[in-house]
């Protein structure tokens, strides 16, 4: 199992470093590949144009069968689907995860989620959520009701 884990993540890392998609840079990947930091840049012509954000990926040994734990670190974008503790409400990170998704495609999805925001604001239940949320967003039972953003 961990064999698949290592081979697949090595492959993804090599691919991301060789042909990085626009505005996505791998900042740091641990030697055991279990924790990555990826910097994404807000797309041009959007509310987040020119801003950079740091994403933290954490992989369990069951990756890619299990989704990675993805949160924003430090400078957390103000967005209706991103809580101020860095948790991201995005279905593909939780129950809609598929092993066919990659770190690169997850970053692109998050980038496009940022791009489609029409107003910089926190989720309406932010205050309540950050009080009750566990450390890992995967411990939350998410309800996805907005297909537009």
């Amino acid at each position, binding site marked *: 199992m961990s064999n698949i884990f290592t081979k697949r993540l090595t492959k993804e890392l090599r691919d991301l470093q060789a042909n990085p998609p626009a505005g996505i840079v791998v900042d740091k990947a641990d030697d055991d590949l279990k924790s990555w930091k990826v910097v994404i840049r807000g797309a041009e012509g959007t509310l987040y144009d020119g801003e950079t954000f740091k994403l933290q990926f954490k992989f369990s040994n069951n990756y890619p069968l299990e989704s990675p734990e993805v949160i924003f670190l430090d400078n957390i974008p103000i967005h209706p689907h991103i809580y101020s503790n860095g948790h991201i409400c995005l279905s593909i990170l939780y129950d809609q995860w598929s092993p*066919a998704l990659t770190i690169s495609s997850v970053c692109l999805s998050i980038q496009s989620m940022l791009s489609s925001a029409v107003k910089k604001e926190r989720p309406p239940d932010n205050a309540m959520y950050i009080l009750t949320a566990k450390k890992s967003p995967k411990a939350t039972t998410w309800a996805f009701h907005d297909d537009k953003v």
Partner: protein
Amino acid sequence: MPQNLYPPSVLATVAALPPVPARPYPKMASSTQPPLRLSTTLNNNNNNANSHSTMTPPTASSAESLAVAAAPVAWEDSTGDEKRCWICFLEEGEEPAPPITTNYQQQQQQQQQQSQRTATSPPPPIWVRPCKCKNSLKYAHETCLLRWITEKQGPLTPDVRCPACGHTYVLAESRDVLLSALTLVDKTVAAVVPYVTLAGVSLAFYIVSTTYGAYAVMTMCGPDVGERVLSENNWGWRTWVGLPMIPISLICSRLTAADAALPLLPFLVLGNDHIRLSFPPSPALTVCILPWARLAYNAVWDKLAPLVDRFFTRKARKQGLEGGMSGGAEQVEDPPVEDGEEEYPLARRDGQRLVLGSLFLPAASQLMGTLLGTLPYLRHRLPSDAFHRNVLGGALLVLCKDMSTAVYRAHRKRQRRTRRVLDYRGD
């Protein structure tokens, strides 16, 4: 054989090769059907699925790995000719494969070794194409896909769909009578367990209640009468129903919700045979009268309580004025607010108190009855048997308790009214 997976040149090579003997099925203990396999649309011939080592001709593998090494393919743009597992992302030839030989005889030897499962080299991975997806999502290793299916499968979701095209994966798995029977047993046990648990808990509750009921009878009636009441001659269905009702009725007697049911309950449980009008009332009659007495007492107390409260509040106020409680306050005025209009935190009423208080009533009544029996003046005026003495003791106890609660409440009120905030006099 899924021939359209290979470019024409490879097909030509395969066609040129002499036919390869198919491996026999691995023997299964209790089934004649093939072992667990993903049935694919392309490959529904079980012979082929099992003799998979024949599907990867050495020439194809080496040619492909060469091509991959020369020019890495961007998978999103690939034509689907190369196989890459959409789960582990390994391409054909990248997996740990058995050593590739070009000599046909060597290859045959190798296959014989594999058919004997000598386990020194892992078997080559089996590729499946389980759904409608194309390009990079077309192929997967069977082992990877089975892991993904296991991951997604739950007791409520036996069907797993492809996350991309939504096609439900079709699984073939061995079935035999023993497994079906054991599965049935497993499901039946799972279905029955909650009910058995509920029945066990209810039975335990029933036994505890009955035991408590017997204890209450013994406590209230004293050993002699108690023995007689609980003797085998008198033990019938009424006892089985009545004894566990005792603790429940005691607890309910603290709740106004039970006002309607309690007065009728003793008549239903005891039946006509035991109830005779007599004086002093027989134990059975007393039990029937008690709920009515309770109702009457509650009604009287509801009228009386405000008077008692006012009386004790005044008394306490006077005491407070005389006793010079006003250490910090200059004067204690008569508060303009009438009694009962303000909310005061009083003795807590909670469930534990209620249950414990009502369950201790028989023991406390017996204690009180015994005390009454030892008082020299009362000894000769009270009924001689333990039961009546204890009932009187219990009644007295309830009265004392209500009175002390009223006094407590009145004094708390009084204390609350004398409350003042003191100025800070530091500087």
